């Protein structure tokens, strides 16, 4: 192993460490903003893993879409919907949740590790090693053309639907606010309560 290979291997371990530490921060912390921070760290590590798997394009897309778009959306969700009065209470329900989480995670881990380690993975015959973006774009627009168009429609419908969902019920709220303002009241808590 040459000097540069050692450096590359060390960087690989650094990326794996980023993924593991980010995931642990994501699932262990009680503060929601730290959860999203851990998610961003795990996504950055995964981007490095994609680089080692030979795809520069997916590395950039991972950083652009996951770290740049999804994490921002989640931060917006936290800023609008987060109630800081939530206190972590050690009740019985908490312990039951933790037990369920650990048992299901351990079961899935053992099953999947048995699958990974017991299977003899055989590479396909006639491999072509063309990782270029040109080949990727040809696959997108010839072989996977229908799926590509469907994904764009799904994204459009999801975004329009989320706008409609997030706007729903605002007229009532405006009426209540105006009503309470004219009655010199406070901000309305919720008419459901």
């Amino acid at each position, binding site marked *: 192993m040459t000097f540069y*290979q050692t450096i590359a291997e060390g960087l*690989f*371990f650094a990326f*794996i460490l980023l993924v593991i530490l980010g*995931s642990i921060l*994501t*699932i262990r912390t009680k503060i*929601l903003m730290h959860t*999203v921070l851990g*998610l961003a760290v795990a*996504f950055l590590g*995964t981007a490095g*893993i994609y680089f080692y*798997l030979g795809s520069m394009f997916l590395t950039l*897309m*991972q950083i652009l*879409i996951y770290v740049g778009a*999804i994490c921002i*959306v*989640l931060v*917006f*969700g*936290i800023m609008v*919907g*987060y*109630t800081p009065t939530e206190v972590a209470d050690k009740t019985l*329900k908490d312990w039951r*949740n933790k037990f369920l*989480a*650990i048992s*299901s*995670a*351990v079961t*899935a881990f053992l099953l*999947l590790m048995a699958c*990974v380690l017991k299977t003899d*993975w*055989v*590479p396909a*015959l006639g*491999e*072509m*090693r063309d*990782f270029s973006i040109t*080949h*990727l774009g040809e*696959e*997108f627009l010839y072989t996977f053309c229908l799926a590509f168009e469907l*994904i764009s429609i*799904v*994204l459009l419908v*999801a*975004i329009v*639907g*989320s706008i409609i*969902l997030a706007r*729903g*019920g605002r007229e009532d709220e405006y009426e209540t606010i105006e009503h309470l303002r004219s009655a010199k009241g406070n901000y309305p808590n*919720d008419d459901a*309560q």
Partner: protein
Amino acid sequence: MMMLSNNLNTYLILGVFLLIAGIYGLIQHKSFIGMLVSTELVLNGAGVNFMAFNRFLAPDPAVGQVITLFIMGIAAAEAAIVVSFILAVFRRYQSIDPNEVKELQG
């Protein structure tokens, strides 16, 4: 010495780790946003698995990249939908704790 970055099992075990971290967080988190974040971890693990098989086993190395890009698109759509759900639920209940949203529990 065998290089770990050139071994399929390393990537598969990393994908398994991301999956079980997502499952653990999905059950253990006490807010909708935490559960959404854990779901993103699961999808990310699926992407790592696809890329690993694409690099080591697949005959055409573009297919796994295409499917991983599809997973990213689905994850983006899912995040947008779920965040707007969370906004609607928060407006209705003033809370994002899944234990307090019990109207459909039966």
